[in-house]
């Protein structure tokens, strides 16, 4: 014991105890941030990595317990102890407390569930069959199956035993996928354009008829012309619809005959299959290729199966369009307000008060801006626009309901303080010498502003804009009030006139995450999509922020060297 007391009594540096405590605080903060990024990135990045699929032979009890056949295939997900006392059942579950391995077993329509979890007692054998295929389907998620043959539309068949079976299979699928895209183009673009025109004419017709009897001669002539054009359009519509139908019939013609792990034979139309691969035969290069392909599909496709499969293109696009619209609104207003505050207003207590208020507006909760957006933009302005310009469509609201335009304006209001503050800072950082030189050369105040101040503070303004974009892109709460939806049938900008649909509701990455995580009918199946979307959103926001930081540093350097 004397050793300890000797140690305590040794000469010491006072307060190292507290220094180390503060150091631990810093470590905790760093671990929080790095750990969070690491965790999200890891979970998001592994989503698309093709893993091996194992075939499990279940014991007799397990088959009865879970209502599963004797053999199933599955993707290993992880291990956790089995819940022994589920709240709904009074008896302890067999195997409760033991570690169970969780698998994604696919084939939802055959097994009734996409997931299974088994203890080591419940699995008799585990193999990695080489000829197992993963089929990504348009409905019911993935299927794990053994191919038997492909029945082609011309009556022929490709047997699974032929050496180039997978290549031929992929070619066939490719064809079908191309055709599906053609049908979509036909229906969305061509037929969409016709329907848009028809609807426009009908609305006009309704407007004329609403004027009541008697119809003036010019109106009667107009009505006749509308009638004529309508019949022409309907004829064209019929031609396209016929074409789409004949393509559709071709789609359903070829089938895949397959065997499930326990031996049951089944058949699926190739039209319902998106992609196939043999997971247990892939080498590293093929895995990387598959990974890139999955990532590409994720970024460019629309969601399927209540957002639990497919891609998130509409959400990315919606976020993009909204952020661009927001920037277009926030930049000029923010810069003008900052120029006024910094250059034109007489500096006094009033301006100082305004400056403090504007600065503090940046700290007002985003939901408050959402409330304002709903009350002012959507109901007040939007409702006004509807009753003035779209009265023939009422009571169906056009602008009197949430939409991408109102959402952008709401976020612009929310982020305008960020731009004002950044711009003011940048203006203050322009060396006084530059300004004086400009005046000395005889430039007016306006000329100085446009030629010297704005170019000089451009990096600062851009920093503010990027920060505003980062904040806007990541914000969800106000959007929930002003027009974001879980699934938008069409994009806010597309090939159907009038091309830019500012009144449309839209999808947003942040809201997509919220919706997938909390309102999905199949929360567990949605989990990989949630993490993939999360990585995307965090990358977007972090890249924007790092960009702003770099720009700011660049700006600082520039002015420390530039002064006279």
């Amino acid at each position, binding site marked *: 014991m004397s050793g300890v007391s000797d*140690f305590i009594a*040794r*000469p*010491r*540096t*006072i*307060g190292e*105890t*507290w*220094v*180390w*405590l*503060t*150091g*631990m*605080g*810093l*470590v905790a*903060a*760093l*671990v*929080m941030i*790095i750990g*969070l990024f690491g965790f*999200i990135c890891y979970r998001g990045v592994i989503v698309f990595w093709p893993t091996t699929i194992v075939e499990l032979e279940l014991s007799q009890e397990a088959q009865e317990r879970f209502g599963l056949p004797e053999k199933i295939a599955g993707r290993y997900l992880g291990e956790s102890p089995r819940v022994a006392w589920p709240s709904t059942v009074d008896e302890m579950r067999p195997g409760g407390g033991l570690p169970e391995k969780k698998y994604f077993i696919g084939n939802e329509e055959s097994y009734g569930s996409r997931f299974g979890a088994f203890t080591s007692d419940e699995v008799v054998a585990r193999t990695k069959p080489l000829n197992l295929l993963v089929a990504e389907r348009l409905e019911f998620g993935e299927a794990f199956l053994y191919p038997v043959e492909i029945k082609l539309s011309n009556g022929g068949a490709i047997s699974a035993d032929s050496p180039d079976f997978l290549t031929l299979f992929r070619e066939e699928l490719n064809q079908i996928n191309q055709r599906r895209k053609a049908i979509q183009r036909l229906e969305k673009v061509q037929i969409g354009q016709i329907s848009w025109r028809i609807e426009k004419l009908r609305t006009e017709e309704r407007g004329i008829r609403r004027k009541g009897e008697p119809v003036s001669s010019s109106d009667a002539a107009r009505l006749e012309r509308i009638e004529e054009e309508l019949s022409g359009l309907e004829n064209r519509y019929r031609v396209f619809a016929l074409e789409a139908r004949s393509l559709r019939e071709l789609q359903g013609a070829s089938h895949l005959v397959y065997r499930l792990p326990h031996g049951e034979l089944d058949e699926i139309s190739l039209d319902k299959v998106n992609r196939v691969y043999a997971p247990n035969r892939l080498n590293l290069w093929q895995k990387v290729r598959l990974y890139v392909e999955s990532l590409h599909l994720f970024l460019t496709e629309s969601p399927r199966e209540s957002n639990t499969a497919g891609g998130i293109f509409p959400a990315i696009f919606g976020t993009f369009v909204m952020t661009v619209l927001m920037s277009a609104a926030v930049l000029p*207003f923010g810069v003008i*307000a900052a120029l*006024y505050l910094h250059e*034109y207003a007489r500096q006094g207590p009033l301006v100082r008060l*305004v400056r403090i*208020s*504007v*600065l*503090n*507006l940046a*700290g*007002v*909760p*985003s939901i*408050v801006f959402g*409330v*304002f957006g*709903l*009350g002012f933009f959507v*109901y007040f302005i939007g409702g006004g626009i509807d009753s003035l310009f779209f009265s023939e469509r009422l009571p169906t609201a056009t602008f009197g309901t949430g939409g991408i335009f109102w959402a952008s304006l709401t976020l612009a209001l929310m982020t305008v303080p960020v731009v004002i503050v950044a711009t003011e800072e940048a203006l203050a950082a322009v060396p006084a010498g530059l300004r004086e030189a400009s005046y000395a050369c005889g430039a007016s*105040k*306006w000329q100085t502003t446009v030629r010297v101040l704005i170019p000089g503070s451009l990096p600062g303004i851009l920093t503010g804009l990027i920060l505003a974009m980062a904040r806007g892109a*990541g914000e*969800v*709460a106000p959007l*929930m009030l002003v027009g974001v939806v879980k699934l938008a049938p069409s994009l806010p900008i597309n090939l159907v006139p009038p091309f830019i649909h500012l009144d449309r509701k839209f999808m947003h990455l942040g809201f997509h*995450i*919220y919706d997938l995580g*909390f309102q999905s009918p199949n*929360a567990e199946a949605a989990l990989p999509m949630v993490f993939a979307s999360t990585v995307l*959103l*965090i990358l977007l*926001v*972090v890249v924007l*922020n790092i960009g702003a930081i770099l720009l700011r540093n660049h700006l600082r350097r520039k002015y420390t060297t530039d002064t006279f």
Partner: protein
Amino acid sequence: MRWFIVVGGISVILSVLGLFVFIFWHAIPLFQKARVGTPSELGVSLVDPVAMLPGSYGFDAVVVQENGAFQFLSCLPFQESVTIELAESGPHEVVEVSTHQGDGYLYLGMRHGAVLTVRTAFLPHAQESHQPVIEILESLQLPVAEGAALLSLDTYHMDQQELIIGLVDSPGEGQILGINRSARANPFGEVETRDEHEWSLILPDGVVAKTVLSGADARSIVVLSEQGELFYFRTGSGSPELRQRFFPMGDQGPAEMAFLNGRRTLAVWTPGGRVRFFTPVSLAAGGFKYVQSNETFFEGTGPLQLVPAADKRSLLLVRGNRVGLHYSTTNALRWEGSLPFVPQKSQFGELNQSILFLNHEGSFVSYPLDDPFPEAGLRGLFGKVHYEGREASSYEWQSTGASDRFEPKISLIPLLFGSIKGTLCSLLISIPIALCAAVYSAQFIRREWKAWIRPTIELMASIPSVILGLLAAIWFGPLVVNKVPSMLSFMVLVPMGAMLAGFAWGRLSPVVRKWIPDGTELFLLVPLFFALSYTAWHLGDWVESIFFRVYDLPTGEWVGDFALWWSLAEGKQMEQRNSFIIGVFMGFAVVPLIFSVAEEAFSSVPRQLVSGSIALGASRWQTVRRVIIPMAASGILSAIMIGMGRAIGETMIVLMASGNTPILEWNFMAGFRALSANIAIELPEATQGGLLYRSMFLGASLLFVLTFFVNTLADLLRGHLRKKYKVLE
């Protein structure tokens, strides 16, 4: 061009600030008193009619005369008043008309005991006007004895349940007669069985009934005696049973009573102006008892008349020519005024949009009434309110109710409480971390590393809160719920371990300490952190089995189980979405803000002060403790305020991980509902301009005021600090 900038700049700033004026402006109607407009009068002479009822379809009121004539009165220019005699033959001596809001049925009680069920309908007529029609649905007879007469009638009818009670002028047995009827319908709405049951009520000896009312659910009967005693009966399949008797007005003598809308809350009043409200409270043993909820007094001359509204829990108080509009739940007088006449009958118009009177000459006068939000007001939104069916007054948020039996409970207190609880939880966790990190990175760390620390931690602030909420709810919540003891030991072990290590380090000989020069302790701290976390995680099970032992009933063993222990110790369940998780994850949002402001405050303490302190022989901690922290105190405060401002308004994290239960509990293992999350949940479904909509705008205003106030204070503190530093330099 100057004007372009000036006008543009001013208008941008004004519109940004005007935003909040707009939000406040939307919340103002919640606090407005009722407004009564200029009256319109209809010159008729109606003397002592049986009843005056609210009209509809352009008719202001319906007056029922003793002879069974219905007069539909209208002040509108295009709608003429119409009189309809009942088609039923024979003399009518209507003594009472009982109505129900919702189904439009009227029950007419006749002196000789017949009860006529009629329905009024309105057929479209020329030029926007309507033609009223009266349809007789049914006629039944109360078993009134020969020579006796019906004094009053009260009925209840809803969901195939019907209760009809009559009061007869023969005292003693058979004074109160009733019929219970019920029909059972199949799922397609077709009536399958009907059940009818007649009874007469026996009052205790010497009690003479004055008023009889039938309560909601067709099973309660309330009787008020001439002496002012109240009897509460329940009927089932048999005869009514006495459940409760008491003197509602104490010893203040005879009284009157009426049910408020919904037929649950009872208003009892004396002619002298005293009104008490009683609400049925359900008993643990089953059944109900009446409990006094509110009391009020209305001054004036003449006996008090009380008229309940058919749409809300509002009521009219009339004494002489003085009239008051009272809202019973919040016990607030919404309006009072004097009429130019003494009314002989008073009534609310349709949807409480007017007040109707028959003046002493028998003329009909209608005052437009504007009182859309009687439930609100300061007391309704922030006060403790005794709601219907509650044992005592409380703060409650329960904004929607399917039927009019429930009234909206819109106390903002539970929501404010939720916001504050969430804020405190997050500050408890983030203040120590952020301030420690700020001190270390401002004063102790190696200069070359400092440039990296700040942007890294500030990057944390940019993580969208939806991501934090997601991780809190679907990853951290389930992970931690079984590992609370591990988290507790983590919180103790990590700081203790660091301090112990520092304690030892300070005593090592300089030869050893040279290996890790000052400012690079992170080399030791990072591995120490992970070692301590790992230990704490596994120590948790041990801590649980030692400190949180409970006797597990199903297995009959002593087990270490924190969740069980907590529910036994606190009496509250431990929830997966709780305040602790909110605290940790809101920390991600708050730590970088506090860090950034505090670090700036610590770093910009004038250099010469630090040098002076070191030169005088102080250690680096003594310098921080005696020079830096006192100097930067207002900066620390400002940093905490900024963090607080962020935490109050944070929406997505609390929306996703707090469980959103509007409860008033400090329990850290329970959830809460914050103002901001409540807006996100309920505003999209609120009717534009309605009570809920405006309450949400009020909530937004509160959030705005709170954050704006806190941020401004932080800003002033920071300005003060800067000035102080400037003087010293």
